[in-house]
């Protein structure tokens, strides 16, 4: 089969503008009427934001392309345009084949419906005809490993089963072009490998084109041969995935010199906004942090409210390849903050810091009443110097891992 060099997707001069604060400013009929009655002249000009500008690339069949970029760089806008969920302002996209996009796991799944019913519903929503689903039905069930629970409502499924079923349907779509967004972030590791394997196989053996968006650079390098870096809505790199990932990681270093409060690459309602992240050595009372020190992360935030209710805060610590090493989440540790002042600082105390020497990027994330309030990736860097974690005056070899684990050695005859 010679699918090589046959185009799958051609994007040229693509741009999309969003008007911030809708044209007339009215979001309710009441406002629209008031506006019309008052003459409607004194409106403020709508602020235009180019979410994507002058984007050009071609994708051949059999190619796997990873889209990389910070929050707000235009990744999801690009996926939405390719998936025909929204329309471009300029330029065009040519699709040479059937496209299936998987922007979320289990779109349209209904908890009250059984696994069997959801396979048909979800498959149809993703664009399969009923007879195609019938033909692939047994394969889907086998891939998802849920044969015994086929006639059980999915609300009784474990989250693992739910994700497996959802991905299984999508994996059997048979599109010529497959678009996948971040969905692999959920599910257990074994199944993630299975899905990645399936996507790779789909591209290599069946000559499909795959477009994959992820914050997980390890998954991007594993799955994609080629990468595109988006910054501020423009393509700033296009080439071998490994090289583009390296360039992305370099942009993160310059990024962190921008004060957090001034960063625009953030997602959320703004019910709460992070202002700064500082890392402090509690034992020494200084900013110098070593392995084994008592450390306090202080995350200053602001809001328009005197108090905030039901606040969840989460810190994610990234390694050198941007892999997520661990999260410090208020959820399991103490539950949501029920009521906090409108301006203040979250304090996270880490006794005896278990990180090896190195630079760790910190992502901060918060929800207020379960809506994402603010999410800034790579908001700060924590530089960890070598330290006496074990209290023995000796240290581990360098470059042999990220974590220090309290342990004991012994010998038994």
């Amino acid at each position, binding site marked *: 089969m010679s699918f090589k060099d046959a185009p799958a997707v051609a994007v040229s001069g693509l741009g999309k503008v969003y008007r911030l604060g809708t044209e007339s400013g*009215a979001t309710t009929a009441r406002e629209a009427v008031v506006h019309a009655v008052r003459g409607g002249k004194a409106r403020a000009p709508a602020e235009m934001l180019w979410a994507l500008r002058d984007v050009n690339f071609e994708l051949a069949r059999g190619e796997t392309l990873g889209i990389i970029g910070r929050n707000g760089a235009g990744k999801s806008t690009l996926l939405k345009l390719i*998936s025909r*969920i929204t329309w*471009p302002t300029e*330029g065009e996209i040519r699709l040479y084949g059937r496209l299936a996009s998987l922007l979320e796991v289990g779109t349209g799944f209904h908890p009250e419906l059984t696994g069997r019913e959801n396979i*048909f519903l979800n498959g149809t*929503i993703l664009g399969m005809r*009923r007879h195609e689903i019938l033909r692939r039905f047994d394969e889907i069930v086998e891939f998802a490993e849920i044969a015994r629970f086929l006639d059980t409502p999915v609300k009784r499924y474990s989250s693992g089963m739910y994700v497996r079923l959802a991905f299984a349907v999508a994996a059997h779509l048979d599109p010529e072009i497959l678009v996948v967004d971040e969905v692999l972030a959920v599910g257990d590791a074994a199944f993630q490998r299975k899905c990645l394997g399936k996507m790779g196989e789909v591209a290599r053996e069946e000559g499909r084109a795959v477009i994959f968006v992820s914050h997980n650079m390890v998954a991007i390098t594993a799955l994609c041969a080629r990468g595109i870096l988006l910054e501020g809505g423009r393509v700033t790199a296009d080439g071998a995935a490994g090289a583009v990932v390296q360039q992305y990681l370099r942009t993160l270093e310059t990024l962190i010199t921008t004060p957090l409060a001034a960063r625009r690459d953030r997602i959320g309602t703004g019910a709460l906004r992070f202002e700064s992240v500082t890392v402090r050595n509690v034992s020494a009372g200084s900013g110098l942090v070593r392995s084994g020190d008592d450390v306090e992360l202080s995350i200053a935030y602001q809001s328009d409210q005197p108090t905030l209710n039901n606040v969840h805060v989460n810190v994610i610590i990234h390694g050198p390849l941007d892999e997520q090493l661990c999260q410090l989440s208020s959820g399991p540790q103490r539950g949501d903050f029920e009521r906090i002042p409108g301006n203040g600082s979250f304090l996270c105390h880490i006794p005896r810091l278990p990180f090896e020497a190195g630079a760790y990027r910190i992502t901060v994330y918060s929800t207020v009443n379960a809506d994402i309030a603010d999410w800034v990736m790579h908001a700060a860097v924590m530089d960890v110097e070598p330290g006496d974690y074990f209290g023995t005056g000796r240290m581990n070899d360098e470059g042999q891992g990220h974590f220090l684990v309290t342990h004991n050695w012994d010998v038994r005859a």
Partner: protein
Amino acid sequence: MPTALHVIRPIGDRAFPDLGEAWRFRDLCFALGRRDVTLRYRQTLLGVVWVVLQPLIAGGLFAVVFGKIAGLKSEGVPYFAFAYAGFIAWGAFQNVLSRSSSALLAQSNLVTKVYFPRLILPISTLFSSFVDFAVGLGSLGVLLVIFRVNPGWPLLTLPFWVLILHAMGLGLGTLASAFTVRFRDLNYALPILTQLLMYASPVAYSTTVIPIQYRRYFLLNPLSGALDGFRWSVLGTSAPGVTGTVIALAGAIVSLFIGAAIFARYERHLADVI
């Protein structure tokens, strides 16, 4: 260079929805309809009981208020059967209207995640509304046997009135569904407007109780003809006449066209504003 299957480029708003594209997605329409019906009747008994109970209570209430207390005439059939039939017909219109108008907001997760002609969403609500109507119609049949009401040949015109009532509901609902995405407060206004419309239409009372000098204005409401026609076909009460029929038919066609046209104008912006 092979030719592209799809070319996505900036395009102005359409004047009318692409019905061919909607037809290609008919499987989705059926699947969503099947889902709604399954969910509604999963606990089979409860679903049916609820559907019958609503007009039963409303019919009883209006039979007492209008029939007994106000002493209005019900054209020779028992007032209860008269009001019950009125509510089955009104219920068809109102269910289609309220379900199709909330379809986009209720399924906003689909609108922002998958491509399909958005018109599928309001249309797919027809299935569950129609099943509810069919159940109600069955219960009305039982009632007619009990009350020994025989409508005679007008029964043959029943499908026509059913079609008109559903078309009016769908046209207005499609229109409202696009508007509610843009103007959220319509969500609250719509039930109130619907309620007003019910009292302005011959649901619980007969057109014949309207003083003759006002009746022509009353008949300008397309629902008047449709409701009278429905009742004529199942109860054999007075026929809606040519004017009433033409206005009802015109109302159905016009509301479908306006609904579709307005929807097409908003369709491409839905994912950006929903």
